[in-house]
């Protein structure tokens, strides 16, 4: 058996069962719609909507996330081959990490990660 076949099986079974579970209320629950019930919750005040723009810091966080996500993947690759590469691999990965840490320091210096 292909080792990834269970992934597909789990995905399919979970999808079916999840769909059934998420529509349980649609079958069993009462249905009494009203205009107020359809409003978005806003602590009781009249609805204002969500048309406002969010802070750019979320974007900067996501950028940093990509940077370190890639680094993490390559670090896994290195960790897996560590025993064969030895000191050569250590030097190599230290250079790699050092370059990325430079980016990290730059981000800190630009205060891109300061919240509030």
């Amino acid at each position: 058996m292909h080792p990834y076949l269970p992934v597909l099986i789990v995905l399919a079974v979970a999808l079916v069962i999840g769909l059934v579970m998420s529509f349980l209320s649609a079958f069993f629950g009462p249905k009494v719609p009203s205009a107020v019930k359809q409003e978005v919750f806003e602590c009781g005040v009249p609805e204002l909507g969500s048309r406002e723009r969010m802070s750019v810091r979320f974007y900067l966080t996501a950028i940093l996330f990509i940077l370190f996500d890639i680094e993490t993947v390559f670090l896994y690759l290195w960790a897996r081959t560590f025993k064969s590469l030895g000191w050569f691999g250590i030097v190599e990965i230290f250079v790699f990490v050092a370059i990325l840490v430079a980016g990290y320091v730059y981000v800190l210096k630009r205060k891109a990660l300061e919240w509030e």
Partner: protein
Amino acid sequence: MIELGFFYLFAVIALGAALGVILLKNPVAAAMLLVVTLCALAAEYVLLGAEFSAAIQVLVYAGAIVILFTFVIMLLNLGQEEVGQLMGVSKWALLFSLLTGAAIILIQRLSVGRLPEAALSTLGSDNVYEVGMALFTRYLWPFELASLLILLAVIASIVIAKKPTLPARDA
């Protein structure tokens, strides 16, 4: 044979989702379909025996890059109404690209049998280890340069995104 069936299944999923990416008006829906395309392609990589490629595809591509897209869409709060329709040239562009695609597939079909035979036995079972060894020995310099590239991209994107731009000229 079963592998081929799965290959077709995921190919259809990937292509359908990719069509959705370029045709849907809602950008968040497009981003989600992009995730579907990427995951279907990751499944193709698994079928092609490239475990690590599938992992990096889901981890970095679907898990990080598309998150960035989603965040930007939410930050700019692009609802349905701000999304551009297809451009005026849409039908022509569509026809043109479909024709070109068909032509290339035709050319490619004609070349069947002239490609080199697949060398199947040389790929081992420990894919992550092999990719790691290749990356850290033969591709040493590209690897270090890649980190430099990421560094530059981070600096550039922070400079561009954080810099207060001039007020808009009369549009």
